[in-house]
């Protein structure tokens, strides 16, 4: 199975945008990791390295946007949060078309430990008015997100990952902003997954299918604005919903879905994610296992949720 990290896809997708002189890529001394370095080499006149100064990164990007540019501002997910208030007060408040495209989200920066992992970023970005939050599920979707966001007005937080994950989509797949993506249909239960967890949800649905449980799998790549119609329909039609995210269960995808369902279709729900703790150093796979971000955990959550459904 072909594998690629969404950060690699981001770096490659940027290269296709280089012909557009309004695209400016900024990085905060992490261009080798975020994969903006390739763009820097090919389009030095459209690349700005601000050094490790994230507040300035966002401010300069804002100024460029005011000047008619479409800036992609990159760093690690966790360090972009250092400029959360700049993102809120300038980028989001003024609806500037700055794309905060961050890599190493979730636990993926595994050996570096808690200081370099980001399990709170979806929550923090989601609560900002005007802000959109996009988490591509694979390399194909990431590339399409970059292409679409280069044209869409308005700010976005694009959450990218370091680990190589399976390609789920065909190469002509086109990301649609704000639309949930149906991966598998099913009637008994719905798995709403985002980012790296989508391919685990697909694998879990296959296990569940063999156990006679018909599982709907939906990729929520746009966490904000959430495709509430798709979420409500899934809850109505399957009567049980599980969210899966490489993020804290507080404030992320699970919370976003619960906010909608508690008002419209309060069905039994399980939230799979990190349970209000910091990460730590280790192998990525081991960390995922420790926090229950595995196919087995999704399967067993589904089985116990189905018992609650009855």
């Amino acid at each position, binding site marked *: 199975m072909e594998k690629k990290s969404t950060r690699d896809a981001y770096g490659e997708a940027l290269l296709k945008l280089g012909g557009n002189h309004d695209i400016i890529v900024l990085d905060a001394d992490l261009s080798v990791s975020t994969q903006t370095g390739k763009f820097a080499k090919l389009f030095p006149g459209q690349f700005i390295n601000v050094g490790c100064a994230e507040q300035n990164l966002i401010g300069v990007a804002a*100024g460029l946007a005011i000047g*008619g540019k479409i800036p992609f501002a990159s760093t690690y997910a966790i360090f972009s949060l250092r400029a959360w208030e700049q993102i809120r007060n300038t980028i989001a408040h003024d609806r500037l078309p700055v794309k905060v495209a961050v890599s190493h989200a979730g636990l993926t920066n595994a050996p570096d430990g808690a200081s370099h992992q980001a399990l709170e970023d979806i929550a923090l970005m989601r609560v900002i008015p005007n802000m959109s939050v996009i988490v591509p599920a694979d390399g194909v979707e990431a590339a399409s997100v970059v292409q679409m966001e280069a044209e869409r007005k308005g700010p976005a937080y694009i959450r990218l990952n370091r680990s190589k994950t399976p390609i789920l989509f065909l190469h002509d797949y086109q990301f649609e902003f704000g639309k949930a993506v149906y991966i598998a249909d099913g009637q008994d239960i719905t798995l709403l997954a985002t980012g790296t967890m989508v391919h685990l949800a697909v694998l879990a649905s296959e296990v569940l299918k063999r156990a006679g449980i018909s599982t709907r799998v939906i990729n929520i790549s746009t966490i904000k604005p959430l495709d509430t119609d798709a979420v409500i329909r899934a809850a109505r039609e399957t009567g049980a919903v599980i969210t899966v995210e490489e993020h804290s269960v507080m404030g992320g995808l699970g919370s976003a879905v619960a906010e909608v369902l508690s008002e419209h279709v309060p069905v039994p729900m399980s939230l799979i994610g990190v349970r209000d703790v910091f990460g730590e150093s280790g192998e990525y796979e081991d960390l995922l296992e420790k926090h229950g971000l595995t196919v087995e955990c999704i399967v067993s959550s589904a089985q116990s949720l189905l018992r609650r459904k009855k």
Partner: protein
Amino acid sequence: MEHSQLHHQADVRTLTKKAKVLRKHIVNMIFEAGSGHPGGSLSCIDILTALYFSELHHDPSKPAWPDRDRFILSKGHAAPALYSALAESGYFPVEILHTLRKMGSMLQGHPDTKIPGVEVSTGSLGQGLSVACGCALAARIDGRCFRTYVMLGDGECDEGQIWEAAIFGSHHKLDSLVAIVDRNGLQIDGPTEQVLRLEPLAGKWREFGWHVIEIDGNKIPDILHAFSEAKKVKGKPTVIIAHTLKGKGVSFMEWIGSFHGKALNKDEMKIALDELERD
């Protein structure tokens, strides 16, 4: 006397008169709002007057003109100063000034892009210089020759982001960028040198690679001269450290810390307006 000097003197007289008009607006609008920041609005108003009525290439009928000079009020709490300059320039009717801080008004407590002529929303300190750097870079990338001006508070220079942007501005040799520090010496909790020592402030900027000009920021000729000196500087950005008086123009407010963020009461407002009418 040379023609240009005559012109300059006439300019100074007009600008001084205009600054007085703007001061009255500031006093009035903050009184009517019942809250706001008069001290730091009055200290920087001579600079804003020089900018909006002499220095900036701008067209109030076309706020989005791509080649306009940019001005960013990073010390956003001086919003009344900016709003009075924008209104008197013709960006919106002067009568609207009375709606400052009122529900439904576009005149938010701190600058907001809802208002024609406001380039970026500000109010949270420390952020305007970075944005100004981005504006200056965009000009260079597009080969446009507009200049970018940004007004900082001195207390605002406590913010780390100011110094991130200061390193950035000189690294990129942004010589179309002019920062002005309203060096009124007072921040909310007291004199800047007691709260967090800034001196030697000029030396800091110089070491960061900026061309530094120190002036009396309440003297129109000094301000105009500094702007023209800044235009001649190549290869580095300029910072004008403008020594000003907080509350300048209203005797009982001058160098009084409590007027940082306090509106005048009715009696105070009358005395203030009398004084501003008198001279």
